[in-house]
């Protein structure tokens, strides 16, 4: 996305995840001139790398009541404003024979205190409403958990921000934050594709860069200690369960299974990583096997289900400012006014929190920005539906075929499928490519789910690469094709059992043995040297 850039904005938001998108929407709706910048593609970071779970808050009820209250509030709001992103599956917290039933009692009690509907049901009823559940369960708690599509949610917020006049720049990185005295006054942006730099004046800069917030803060001369926690997840090739299944115990590894689209997601692990390792999204074989061993206890059918790939995301947890050791983590929302904390005016960091509470986070950051800019418009994001939420198709359908927000061509009967696994059409891919010259495979994937199904791109990759030839030239298209294959391969390598090697072998047969892509790449590389 490259749009006409003004030389000055009321507010510049750094980070194109769901939080940044939400802030951009809120700011634009309140009449600020708004610029959203993202160094990679929208949803590149943790937004594109989580469970897709719409928490009811039950999971936090025992440990963090305030967090649970925020969750259920926002859960109800999202059910109204983002109907097209939410699949109201309901959720179960299951107690297995080895789990402590006293925890269940505490969970139910805490849920009620937080205002979350939580009803204990017996094992037979749980098996009836969710046939995939571990049949040895003792009992379960029924809660309003749901499945939410983070990609669609982010895109809808971005689209609405644009409809309200916001400018959105992807592949643009903030490389400098300039100060006039104590106040932030401008940023320097670098186009990560052309390496071109430009300076933009900013009334307020909002740092919504997730785990990368610490790096953005440093540009403004502010120290912000983050405690990155990496979580690994497995994508399973079938929709095993129809409801969200949680383990009813203190949060631990692999105790959530979320159905989403035609697949389901099992997770997660939690491991502290040094800040230098936040770009490393690889998953080890041990992590993958551990997830599966534990996950089978939620739904035994997982053992017979193909694992499509493993992926990881990094939670943007913030170190507690009051704790000098930096060991205590705040899991709640951190909306930091750096003028109060560090004496740097017009600079706000919004981080911590959950995907679930992105809207509330956006509201808090935008309120603060309004205060700084002396504006008095009230927040309307909780009551104004996102684009797509009101359309009949979106509200009645639960399939991926209504995935994106405004795609009438989905229903064009003459339109051929490029990606058969995920139902992505030729027209759709061409429209996105025409909108933006620099869209690569990964960006297409995030917008359409192309290549995310069982064959992991074997059949569609070449078809898409053909479409890139006219725009980027054959050699560049070939390189992008190989990059995409490598990206898919990265997620497959930790889960080499079951059908993964079978798919990988056939992909190698097609692209190497039959087509000679390895030979073509060799020639391209030799030419470059």
């Amino acid at each position, binding site marked *: 996305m490259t749009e006409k850039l003004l030389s000055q904005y009321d507010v510049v938001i750094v980070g194109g995840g769901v939080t940044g998108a939400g802030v951009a929407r809120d700011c634009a709706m309140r009449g600020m001139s708004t610029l959203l910048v993202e160094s990679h593609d929208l949803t590149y970071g943790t937004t594109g790398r989580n469970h897709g779970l719409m928490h009811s808050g039950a999971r936090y009820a025992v440990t963090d009541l305030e967090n649970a209250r925020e969750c259920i509030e926002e859960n109800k709001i999202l059910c109204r404003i983002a109907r097209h992103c939410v699949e109201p599956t309901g959720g179960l917290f299951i107690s297995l024979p080895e789990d402590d039933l006293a925890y269940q009692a505490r969970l139910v009690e805490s849920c009620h205190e937080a205002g979350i509907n939580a009803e204990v049901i017996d094992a037979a009823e749980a098996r009836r409403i969710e046939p995939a559940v571990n049949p040895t369960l003792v009992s379960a708690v029924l809660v309003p958990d749901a499945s939410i599509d983070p990609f669609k949610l982010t895109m809808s917020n971005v689209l609405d921000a644009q409809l309200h006049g916001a400018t959105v720049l992807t592949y643009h990185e903030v490389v400098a934050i300039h100060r006039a005295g104590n106040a932030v006054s401008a940023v320097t942006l670098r186009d990560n594709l052309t390496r071109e730099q430009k300076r933009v004046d900013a009334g307020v800069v909002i740092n919504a860069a997730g785990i990368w917030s610490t790096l953005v803060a440093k540009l403004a001369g502010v120290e912000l200690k983050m405690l990155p926690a990496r979580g690994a997840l497995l994508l399973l090739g079938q929709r095993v369960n129809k409801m969200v299944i949680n383990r009813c115990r203190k949060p631990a590894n692999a105790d959530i299974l979320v159905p989403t689209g035609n697949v389901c997601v099992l997770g997660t692990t939690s491991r502290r990583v040094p800040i230098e390792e936040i770009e490393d999204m690889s998953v*080890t*074989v041990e992590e993958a*096997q551990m997830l599966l061993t534990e996950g089978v206890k939620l739904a035994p059918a997982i053992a017979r289900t193909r694992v499509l790939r493993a992926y990881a995301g990094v939670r943007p947890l913030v170190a507690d400012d009051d704790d000098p050791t930096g060991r205590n983590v705040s899991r709640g929302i951190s909306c930091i006014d750096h003028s109060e904390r560090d004496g740097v005016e017009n600079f706000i960091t919004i981080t911590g929190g959950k995907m679930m509470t992105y809207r509330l986070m956006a509201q808090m950051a935008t309120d603060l920005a309004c205060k700084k800019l002396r504006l008095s418009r009230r927040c309307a994001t909780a009551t104004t539906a996102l684009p797509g939420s009101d359309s009949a198709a979106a509200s009645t359908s639960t399939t991926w075929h209504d995935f994106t927000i405004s795609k009438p061509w989905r229903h064009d*009967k003459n*339109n*051929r*499928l*490029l990606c*058969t696994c995920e139902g992505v*059409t*030729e027209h759709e891919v061409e429209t996105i490519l025409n909108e933006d010259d620099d869209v690569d495979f990964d960006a297409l994937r995030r917008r359409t789910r192309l290549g995310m199904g069982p064959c992991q791109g074997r*059949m569609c990759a*070449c*078809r898409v*690469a*053909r479409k890139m*030839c*006219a725009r980027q030239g*054959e*050699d560049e*298209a*070939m390189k992008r094709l*190989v990059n995409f*294959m*490598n990206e*898919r*391969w*990265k997620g497959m*390598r930790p889960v*080499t*059992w*079951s059908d*993964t*090697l*079978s798919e*990988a*072998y*056939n992909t*190698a*047969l*097609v692209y*190497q*043995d*039959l*087509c*000679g*892509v*390895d*030979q*073509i*790449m*060799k*020639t391209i590389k030799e030419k470059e040297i």
Partner: protein
Amino acid sequence: MRYDVLVIGAGLSGMTCAIALAQAGKRVAVLAPNSGTLPMHSGSFDLLGYDNEGKVVEHPFEAINKLDPSHPYSKIVATHGLQRIRQLAEQAYEMISQLPVSPPSHDEASAPQCPVANQYRLTPMGALKPTWLTPVHLTAFDTPSLEGRQFVVAYYKPFLDFPVEFLAEGLRKAGAEVQVKALELNITSVGKAALKAPALARQRQGEALLKQLDGFAGQCPVLVPHIFGDMELTEMNERLERRLSVVPTLPPTCAGHELSDHLRSLFTSLGGTLLEGDRAMSAIIENDRIEAVKSSKHVTHDLLQAEHYVIASGSFGVKGLEARYDRVAEPIFDLDIDALDDPQQWTTSDVLSLQPYTNFGVRTDEHFRTSKHGRTIENLYAVGSILSNTNSMKLACRQGVSMLTALQVANGILNSR
């Protein structure tokens, strides 16, 4: 019914073995749950295209001598000498020549004979890969340089799996002048699913193609996607002054589809029993011999019995090999496997570099006999891609390994007692 030989798998290796045995008068049955990896077959037969260093091999019979001792070819050389490879290749060449695909030929002037030098097949994405044999309608060249040559490349727009952009670019990189033309065909299609090459060939669009060829400038060769049947191509080329040749599409390929059909017809015409849609499940093993095989359709009283058994069930792609949590296994007999223990070492990060798992396979002795728990199974042989250390992704030797090991084993069975 007791057979002389039961062959497990109906890909290129299984069918080659079964046909050779049936031609020699043996009673042979083939378990044919699918066509192996034939749907991904280019049409050409690779014998040895690259050496261990990745260099192009011009004369495969000479280069075979330099392969690792663990390679299936090297086993044949070790027991029967390099000359045996030539004999097996000639036997393979004769079998291919019996199929209704027109006899492959390198040199149009003289009578067809078993080639000794590699040609260069044109791949769907425009690479020129060394290969041993290419059937007459498919596109292959004697040299990898196309300097001074001219081509018209035609494509059919609604067919997505013919990457004409890359194909034309590959030809240009090889030095050729290329014109790209769109074809108009009268294809009827249903639904939104992508068109497949074999289905297009059934719609017999040869006439529509011929009408358009006059409109293409000059008399230079015309390359079209392989979405026309062999019979039709023969007819068309008889009526044309200039040469029309096809380039493989992405899978499923016409060539693979037709080769599978031809091999099956030849086998059944020889009196062989094709057990279609039937999959081997397990076996009864006594005193290091296979006594009977259970299959999906022969489960209880009618188990499949034979004197000799040949496993040709392929590699990972068709699940002749399976990756489990902790090990790689051959699922029917649980045969001994050559593989690395640690799953972290099965793969490497660069998808195009050699992936160690692709060389995993069934362990065999010098006669391609398999073993279980370290003990040789006297009457079970393995052939084709299920064998370990074929390195066929990098050496371009897939069809050669399939046919030559299959014929070697067939000859061994025929010569036993």
